[in-house]
């Protein structure tokens, strides 16, 4: 437990500077389960968003969610709800909030927080099992979040 505290302290102390025109993870504003302001100036690219959702090393969303439109990607998980029709169920701002930090939208959810920098307990360096060299970047970049939001908006009933 001591060690966890220590790494938390490091993470809190460390600042992650965002590229200009991007909102840094710690500056994202949540209001009523939504994040209104896009994280970047560049509009989201749904094609790249689709790639992020289906790729193990990126969002790996299909580890937990089934998406019918993505039947070319094998093995979809069933831990979370199907993402079919999610573009109808939520506004863009709500989807952005779920992506940035699902725990701020669904209390205690198992879904990872994709745009935050901690604090974490025993953070590791990717999937190596080793301690990180420094502060960890968020799981997805600001642009990747916008791209995934753009892709999810295409998932209509």
């Amino acid at each position, binding site marked *: 437990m001591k060690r966890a505290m220590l790494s938390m302290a490091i993470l809190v102390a460390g600042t992650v500077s965002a590229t200009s025109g991007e909102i840094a993870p710690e500056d994202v504003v949540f209001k009523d389960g939504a994040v209104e302001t896009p994280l970047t100036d560049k509009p989201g690219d749904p094609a790249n968003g689709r790639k992020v959702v289906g790729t193990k090393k990126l969002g790996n969303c299909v580890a937990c969610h089934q998406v019918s439109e993505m039947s070319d990607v094998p093995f979809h998980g*069933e831990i979370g709800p199907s993402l079919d029709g999610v573009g109808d169920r939520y506004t863009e701002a709500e989807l952005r909030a779920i992506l940035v930090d699902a725990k701020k939208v669904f209390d*205690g959810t198992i879904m990872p927080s994709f745009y935050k920098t901690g604090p974490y307990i025993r953070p590791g360096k990717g999937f190596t099992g080793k301690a990180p060299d420094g502060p960890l970047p968020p799981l997805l970049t600001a642009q990747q979040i916008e791209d995934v939001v753009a892709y999810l908006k295409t998932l209509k009933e």
Partner: protein
Amino acid sequence: MKNRVTLKGAFGVAAAAVTMAAASTALAETAPPIKDLIINGEEKMIVVAKPQPGVSNLDMEYDGWLFRSPETQALQMDDFENPGMIFVEQAEEMWNTAEGSEGKSCASCHGDPSSMKGVRATYPKMSKSLGKLATIEMEVNNCRTERMGAEPWKYTGGKMVAMNALITLQSRGMPVDVRVDDSVRANWEHGKEMYYTRTGQLELSCANCHEENYGERIRADMLSQGQINGFPAYRLKNGKLNGIHARFKGCVRDTRAETYKPGSQDFIDLELYVATRGNGLSVTGPSVRN
């Protein structure tokens, strides 16, 4: 599953319309299809058991075998098909081979491996010779260094896991009966805390996957309850027998966390706790997994 998805989806609509805060954290655990595990057509295993009160939030304990495909299940139903048995045979040879400065083998002190009956069912436990909470691996290495004058084996090494499989086999079918008395209570509490702590950048706890979502698929893998009564486990994926701590390490790594070391006090405590979550299930190791 279909129902639940619709339910959650519907909930999403309602929640989105009002405010989405504090939406469903409903458990999605699903019981596996219940089948009999009878090994060699005669040894019937207890694969479903009632949990002890106060240990976990499980309604029922299920052996990890129940969650596997029929093909993988079949391999464990016949010792001639179970690739883990090859390692048991190798361990039988090691059992009888004298090593170290004392010129002794396991057999010199313990006689036949059948003298180990009951060991797997009750470990980890407070060890008389070590004076602390011990795993089977620790006892084996204690015999090697203190009684045989031999080098200790690597905690997760091939020889250690094989010997563990031989010892485990002697208890096959017996219900796991790991006790927590005052001497190990603090270890157990620590293990329990670890089990429910969300670690790593993915912030996942053992419970997130193995208590709240067993029976559901995470990508291609059907999540089990993460029970350890079937260890050591022969995995088709890596073609060898795997010990408990090696499995723990892999699971912790998958949360994008800094792992604990096999043989560390952390993992020993976690093993004690996880063992008690499976009390009442049969010792089924060496098992076969994908």
